[in-house]
């Protein structure tokens, strides 16, 4: 069993933002154990990096944290409420979480400004408010000058900044990023990480980030490692394989 308590500057008595309680996720009728009895706590304002090789279960964990998937066993609590008992996970995702994907996943037919508005369809904002809020977010990520551009006209770094603006559309409590710099050159990657630092430092956004790169993880306040579906507080020893 892996029990990790990650609390960066938070009060011990405070209810954690996320508590992953003995969660397992298997595929192919149990033949593939993507996650095996994993537990994890993330407090408000944390900046957590999850490191691990390909196929180690990072994305599975992120999908579970993002309520995109359900665990086979165990429970994930958000603000103390079990997600398995949440009847409207769509609304939960829309209003509580922000996703940043490695491949950006912007809608190709919509401009940057329109892409940022997409999550707001499920929120309380009206049409005009959506536009104004999206403009503000694009300005925040330094993309206001490309608001009318389609994704294919943007550089990969610009696309990821637009994707970050989209992730912030409904003022989420938690930003989940899956290899956000994986498709970027070092300069663009650094810009994106600077943006994450800024969001964490100045807006107090809780960030959980998946990465292969140690230099990316170094930006986070705390790093955990995942290997063969098991979570570890310390990195694997040099030469030690995940198996």
């Amino acid at each position, binding site marked *: 069993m892996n029990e990790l308590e990650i609390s960066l500057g938070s009060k011990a008595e405070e209810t954690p933002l996320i508590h992953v309680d003995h969660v397992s996720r298997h595929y192919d009728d149990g033949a593939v154990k993507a996650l095996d009895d994993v537990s994890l706590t993330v407090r408000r304002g944390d900046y957590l990096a999850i490191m691990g090789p390909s196929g180690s279960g990072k994305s599975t964990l992120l999908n579970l944290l993002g309520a995109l998937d359900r665990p086979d066993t165990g429970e994930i609590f958000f603000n103390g409420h079990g997600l398995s008992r949440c009847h409207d996970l769509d609304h939960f995702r829309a209003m509580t979480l922000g996703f940043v994907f490695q491949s950006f*996943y912007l809608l190709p037919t919509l401009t940057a400004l329109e892409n940022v508005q997409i999550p707001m369809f499920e929120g309380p904002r009206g049409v005009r408010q959506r536009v104004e809020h999206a403009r503000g977010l694009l300005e925040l990520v330094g993309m206001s000058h490309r608001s009318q551009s389609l994704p294919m006209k943007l550089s990969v770094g610009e696309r990821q900044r637009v994707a970050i603006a989209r992730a912030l559309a409904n003022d989420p409590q938690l930003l989940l990023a899956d290899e956000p710099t994986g498709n970027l050159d070092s300069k663009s990657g650094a810009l994106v990480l600077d943006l994450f630092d800024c969001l964490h430092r100045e807006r107090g956004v809780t960030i959980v980030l998946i990465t292969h790169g140690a230099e990316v993880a170094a930006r986070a306040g705390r790093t955990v490692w995942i290997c063969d579906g098991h979570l570890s507080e310390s990195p694997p020893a040099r030469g030690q394989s995940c198996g």
Partner: protein
Amino acid sequence: MRLTQVAARNLLRRPARTILTVVGIGIAVAVVVALVGVAESLESSFLKLYVDQSVDLVVQRRGGTMQLSKGLTDKLGDQIRAIPGVRGVIGGLMDMVAFEEHGLFMVIVNGWEPDCPVLDRVKILEGRRLQADDRRHVMLGRVLAAQLNKHPGDKIELYAQSFEVIGVFESFSIYENGAAFLLMDELQRQMDRPGQLTGYVIQVEPHGEQRTIDRVGHDIEALDPEVAATPCFDFVHSLKQMKVTRTMAWVVSAIAALLGACGMLNTMAMSVFERRREFGILRAVGWRPRRIVQLVLLESLCLAAAGACLGISVGLTVPVLLTYWPPTAVLVQGDLSFSGVLAGIALALITAVVGAVYPAYSCATIPPVEALRSA
């Protein structure tokens, strides 16, 4: 940004496919609008022939599958005139001939008595009306005269005999404009049906009063059990030719609807399958399945609306064009057919819903993780 804009952008992503789908739906809608319109026009044109003459009843021999095949005697007219409440009785003999060299088939030939009000009702454009002592003389409706390129004094061949065109007339009825008028006894002679008429049209007093119509109809049928007196609307509606035309129109419309729905289903299924990952993204950022269904339905409705606009425009133009084509010029009025338009709109809506429901449901219910994994 509104949902409609998202839908519009998706449709414009593949303009060729969108245009082809719209054209496909448009053709289906046009077929429905045109066929239903033509069928309705045929019926309304025929009904107009009676209604505009304030006809209340049509009297014909009972049981004939074709109205021309059986006849009534000219004595029956006098008996009907004696029935209380009968204001007017017009007897007529009808036949159909062909002018094959002009591509005209089923041209109506009417035989009227010299004092028949019909001969006074039509407007003489050239020449004069038929008189009692006219022999081998014919009046031509405006459209028929133009199609045959005949004027008063010219000869035409009817029943293998030479007839002189005595006048050209215009009527409110497109059927009469495409018809030829002969005197009754002339036509009876040519058809070898002396003393026979095809039927009578009856005006009652007061016109349109149902109780009087029913009583007079009953009295007429009492004169001869083989005679049927039918209110003119029922008569037109029950004509075999009208029934066949209506049935054909609706059968072809149903086939068009099926093809339209298949085309829409194909387009929407392709479109949705291609965008599986995008739907995964939308689900990941919190879009509910209901909103995704709305988006797909909206796209489908946009296609259907564009197809309906195109189809209705074409479908309404076709009957108008048919009024300029000689074989159909005397059958179709080219009026606006509301039921045709409604049928076209209904078809477009049905294809939109039928074509979108399955793709929308399948993409809305796919787990977001699975959709995001799609290449």
